[in-house]
């Protein structure tokens, strides 16, 4: 690998990659991606932290404490062996609540990404593949959505939905919040997918597929999309982090997930009143948000390096 390329890696990602030049010629794509990911120190550390987080969130069902039942005699205890994160104003174990909150926050993150993909990929694919007036209309809609002041509209929507009783989106449930955030964040994916489709549709293999009579849908789904999957994965990963941050922010403002259901944001919000006397109530939930987001960001960074299709092609000798 040339010096110039190392420089580029670093310019883009802030990290020098330990790239292995003695790569066997017959190495498969998946193995190669995995090897590159493994050699990114931040990504490995991020995976470990996130793995531990997910594990403890999964195991919290075995916690001896109930996340919602109050136990007033043991209220506002400092962190101890019995309650590692202390207890809240209603005597509930903070560690248990923080981990249950993690469930909510991660669930919101994943659901937002799902919504983002469901809207963004088709919009971007159709716009990029067909071009012309279809592209024009779809991209103007995307631009309009991007011109909305996101946080302000987010607050507005969740303030409205907070008092709405609809069959699916009841009182800012996890689904409601995920929907609201997702509806305001599909635009990046749409643009990304459009850009990828614009370039890939000109490639010979697409023309070949067209010539043997493949339908538009088949070309889009079977021939173009798999080649655009790298950037989509990277963007989705970073989107999880972003969604967690947005959800915590909304819940912090009181517009998000409503107590007694714990989420990292509303735990922080409730901690405000006790900030000076019982700081641990604020420190731990925030620390969890921070850990989760930094871990996901590092994973995204590692994935970006490992999946960069141009770099992969270069190593396979295609370009």
């Amino acid at each position, binding site marked *: 690998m040339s010096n110039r390329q190392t420089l580029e890696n*670093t310019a883009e990602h802030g990290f020098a990659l330990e790239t292995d030049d003695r790569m066997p010629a017959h190495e498969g794509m998946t193995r190669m991606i995995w090897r590159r990911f493994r050699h990114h120190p931040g990504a490995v550390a991020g995976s470990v932290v996130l793995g531990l987080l997910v594990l403890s969130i999964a195991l919290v069902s075995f916690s001896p404490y109930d996340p919602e039942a109050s136990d007033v005699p043991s209220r506002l205890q400092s962190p101890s062996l019995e309650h590692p994160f202390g207890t809240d104003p209603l005597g509930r174990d903070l560690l248990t609540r923080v981990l249950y909150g993690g469930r909510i926050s991660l669930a919101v993150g994943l659901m937002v990404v799902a919504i983002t993909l469901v809207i963004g990929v088709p919009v971007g694919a159709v716009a990029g593949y067909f071009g012309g007036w279809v592209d024009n209309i779809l991209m103007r809609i995307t631009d309009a959505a991007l011109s909305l002041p996101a946080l302000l509209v987010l607050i507005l929507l969740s*303030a409205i939905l907070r*008092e709405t009783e609809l069959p699916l989106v009841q009182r800012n449930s996890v689904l409601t919040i995920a929907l609201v955030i997702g509806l305001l964040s599909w635009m990046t994916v749409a643009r990304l997918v459009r850009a990828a489709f614009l370039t890939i549709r000109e490639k010979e293999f697409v023309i070949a597929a067209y010539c043997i009579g493949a339908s538009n849908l088949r070309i889009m789904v079977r021939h173009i999309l798999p080649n655009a999957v790298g950037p989509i994965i990277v963007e989705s990963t970073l989107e999880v982090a972003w969604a967690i941050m947005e959800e915590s922010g909304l819940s912090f*403002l009181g517009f998000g997930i409503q107590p007694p259901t714990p989420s990292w944001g509303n735990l*922080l919000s409730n*901690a405000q009143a006790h900030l*000076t006397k019982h700081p641990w109530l*604020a420190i731990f939930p925030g620390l969890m948000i921070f850990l989760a987001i930094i871990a996901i960001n590092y994973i995204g960074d590692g994935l970006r390096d490992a999946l960069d299709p141009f770099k992969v092609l270069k190593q396979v000798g295609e370009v």
Partner: protein
Amino acid sequence: MGRYIARRLLQAIPMLFLISIVLFALINLAPGGPLAGHSRSRHIRPERAEMLKRQFGLDQPYFLNWSELTRLKPIGFLTRTQYSVWLIGNDWMKVDADGDGIREEHGERWGILRGDFGFSFQTRQPALERIVEHLPNTVYLMGVTLIVVAIIAIPVGVISAVKQYSVFDIIVTTLSFMGQAIPEFWLGLILILVFYAWLDNPFTGEPLLPSGGMSTLGIEFSLWDWIKHLILPVAMGAVGWVAWYSRFLRSGMLDVLHMDYIRTARAKGLRERVVLYRHALKNAIIPLLTIFALDLPYIFAGSLYVELLFSWPGMGRLYYQAAVKRDYPVLMAVLTIGAGIMIFSNLLADIAYGLVDPRVRYD
């Protein structure tokens, strides 16, 4: 260039129109309506509620007035609606102010196209006046924050690019990852905890830094007092920005540093500082300018979390309170102006890019 700008401005008009319709629809989706948050007691007498509704024009349909259409009045179909009154006003047509079914006098609203954003439900001031009251505080806070961000991020970005892989660079890169991951609202809580609750001024025994407000109430103006009130909010707002901008500048610098003209500048025997800050930085900062122009709307909207946490009487807090109190005219005003600024700064970003980089051509 002129034609390009004109075309973009023309494109902005239908887009703003579309956005305003969507926002108007969203706001009015809320069950209960604005009166739910308007009166101090939620139980107002029905006849008074009727009167208030008429007074604010809330008895009209939102977008299309079907009853006008059945009376074969196609203009009234479009104009005797809440959205139309908001957009173009009703001072040019007779309205039924007292609810007796007879339209006897002209309306009083001018519509936003003539600068009338309606009256705040909360204070009965014009909505625009409330914005004008709050805007300077936000611009002041965000202006100082941005200056601090520039002062820190530019040298940090340049140095970590030049000393790539040095200890400094590794620390900066790690810190910038952390800075981007730290939730702003949590950072604010921690700052208050440390500098207000834990640390005391060793001479007076008071908290080291104040926990909110723009200045101490009831004392004479003192510069030091104002600065003290700025430190924590600015720190809270700046961390994320510094992290993001310095990382961005670093990668920009790395792209530029191996260019031929940098080698030429060095070969000419220019001092390293001139090479870096005059020749390299000028080119590396171009992409940052775009990012900055896209961040401009924040100077208008302010950072909601900073303003709420430090009770800063700015736009973010105004919006939050309007959302809680359902002050529709204020919400609509902030959102519309915000979207306008957003579109305008997108355009500005594209123009700025062309101005500083002559290689970019517009068609």
